[in-house]
């Protein structure tokens, strides 16, 4: 049991943080939000630094890290509220790495890590349920059907699409987005991130993985989303502490009022337990021992915690946190959107509920 990051990871985190603070001002994020687009220039710069490859083996040009390192990258990007498809691409690349089959998968992985390709998952359909997939495997005339809630669909070079084989099994197909038979319709959302409903009208699709790959993709993306939630909560709290330390009312800083301190303490407790559960889950994924229940429990826990944390942040900021000149709102809206992404608290609790007969872990 060693909860410290260790020197290598501390250096990685510091480097990524410094890079993003220099390259990604909050004004730049606001501009992307207004234009409803991903920050592709920043994405290319991030890839050029080699950060994206950190979780992958050195043979692939990576840093021999793991899924925990992916978590750290995600956290840093989320702390900047940057409009980057970091979870989507890392989850896709990790799936290609661990479950990809054939030359298509290998090539796509290499191109992804070098920044040439940008694959994002396109899993959900109208039912918003990872298991209720009606899209059929592509026939001779290509892939036909719709996917919903596809994050960064228009920024992507490829979509990783789930569809059912003739025997009903789920498989993962890759579709290039320059295919004319693919149409994206923007879905404006609370998080102000680029999201689309995608229609495939005979798009060319190649199978790259079976049901194991699909399951892995969901688990990894769900766990990495927890790193986003953690960063949003942490950013909200650190801004709140800084603000209440300087904002004076009745002649004294707000932070000296017990009512204020106790709210902040509750935020901190949510964050510390969230941090432990998130990295414990990422660690278990790294070791290949994470159960679906563990990942779902962690996601449920963070998805439940985040609204309480960010809304308390607003409460303690008062009007100052309500205006969009203040950066606080980024973490509120992105965070809540991420609560719903890759399994809401309700959906994830439903997974935990299947195994309530199993004993509770206490060590």
């Amino acid at each position: 049991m060693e909860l410290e990051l260790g020197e290598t990871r501390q250096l990685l985190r510091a480097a990524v943080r410094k890079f993003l603070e220099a390259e990604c001002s909050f004004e730049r994020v606001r501009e992307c939000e207004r234009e409803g687009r991903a920050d592709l220039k920043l994405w290319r710069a991030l890839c050029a630094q080699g950060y994206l490859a950190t979780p992958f083996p050195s043979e692939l040009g990576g840093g021999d890290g793991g899924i925990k390192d992916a978590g750290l990258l995600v956290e840093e990007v989320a702390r900047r509220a940057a409009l980057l498809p970091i979870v989507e691409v890392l989850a896709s690349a990790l799936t290609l790495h661990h479950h990809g089959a054939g030359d298509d998968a290998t090539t796509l992985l290499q191109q992804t890590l070098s920044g040439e390709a940008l694959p994002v998952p396109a899993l959900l359909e109208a039912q918003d349920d990872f298991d209720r997939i009606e899209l059929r495997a592509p026939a001779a005339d290509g892939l036909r059907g719709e996917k919903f809630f596809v994050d960064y669909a228009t920024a992507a070079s490829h979509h990783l699409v789930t569809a059912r084989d003739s025997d009903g099994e789920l498989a993962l197909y890759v579709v290039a987005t320059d295919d004319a038979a693919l149409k994206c319709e923007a879905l404006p959302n609370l998080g102000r991130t680029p999201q689309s409903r995608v229609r495939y009208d005979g798009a060319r699709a190649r199978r790259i993985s079976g049901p194991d790959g699909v399951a892995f993709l969901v688990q990894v993306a769900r766990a990495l989303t927890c790193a986003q939630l953690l960063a949003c909560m942490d950013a909200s709290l650190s801004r709140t502490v800084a603000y209440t330390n300087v904002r004076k009312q009745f002649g004294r800083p707000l932070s000296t009022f017990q009512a204020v301190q106790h709210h902040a303490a509750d935020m901190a407790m949510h964050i510390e337990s969230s941090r432990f559960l998130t990295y414990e889950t990422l660690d278990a994924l790294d070791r290949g021992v994470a159960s679906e229940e563990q990942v779902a429990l962690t996601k449920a826990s963070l998805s439940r915690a985040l609204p309480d944390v960010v809304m308390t942040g607003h409460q303690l900021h008062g009007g100052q946190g309500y205006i969009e000149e203040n950066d606080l709102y980024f973490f509120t809206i992105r965070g809540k959107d991420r609560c719903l992404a890759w399994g809401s608290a309700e959906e994830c609790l439903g997974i935990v509920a299947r195994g309530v007969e199993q004993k509770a872990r206490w060590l």
Partner: protein
Amino acid sequence: MNYQWAAEHLAFRDEVETFIHEWRTPALLREYRAREGAGGGPLLTEYYAALQQKGWMRMCWPREHGGEGQNPIYRFILVETMEYWGMPYGNLTYTSIAPTLATHGSEEQKQRYLPGIWSGEYTFAIGYSEPNAGTDLASLRTRAEKVSGGWRVQGQKIWTSLAAQSTHIWLAVRTDPDRPKHAGISLMVIETGSEGVTIRPLPTLSGLTTYETFYDNVFVPDENLIGPLHGGWEIIMHALNHERVGLSPTGNLARNYDLLVEHLMKHAAQKLQDPVLRIRLAEMKMEVQRHRALAVCNAVSIARDEMSPGLASMAKVSGSELRYRMTNLAMDLLGRAGALTEAAGELAPGGGRQESTWRASPILRFGGGTNEVQRSIIAARHLGMAR
């Protein structure tokens, strides 16, 4: 970064569990409950002797104080495992007074008290709080005045738990009323049977009894002063620190969950299929994991020899509040039977465990430093908020 328990830690847990299964009999648990957590009954004495033999009680103490100098994480694992199985592992006499005596006591005092503590012959009640000195403990007013060969103590203490079962009272007294309030306090040991000590029982909501103790001109010999004169406040703080690692365990919460589910599986199999109830149980399981996260963070931080008062306070707040919420929900899920006490016999689910834990839960929130004080500590020490 590694979230796995080391093999030797898991092996230790297994060893503790094997020992527990060897000793865990209904008769022992009955005696433990009847003694309200004090040592001294025949079965408990035998059990504590076996526990001593294992060397687990002192394994994390420094070698110079008679321990093995093991990493405190072993203490955490011991506490969690004992808590899961509801087994005694020493009251505050063992876990707080003894290590404090080992650090602050004279050689003669260690010889005088420690062997009796190890054998279970001595139980110390703690006399800190007073009717007007609770959370603001440093304002305590029980006086000790210097007389030839010792001190005369005059005053009143409250919440002197185990006083009636104890052999000694570990007493905080004011030895200099003219100094600033933290700097005029000393620590003394009083034999419970001393002339002038009166004990009045105060039955509590939990079913256990605490005590009010009165000190009417009680003589305390010089050799019973622990540590330096007027140096009591540091000793009190030291004694509290010894409790930090096993503070607010997850073991008993997980056990509570497991027993509830076991009961539902056995007696309400159909109810257990209700999807709404299953979601409630899933939430409960999630909350236990949230608490485990804070408890482990705190233990690992102590094991690294870091001072993180914020983490200790988080674990305390989280565990104590969850204990209430969990039993509250469990009782709701059980319906009317959830309110039946142990005395109702077979109809009481799990021997009335949910009901009795719910009833006992307030003390965990206000005791050991109220949760309000803990939250202020988190704000100041963990978050660096201006005070």
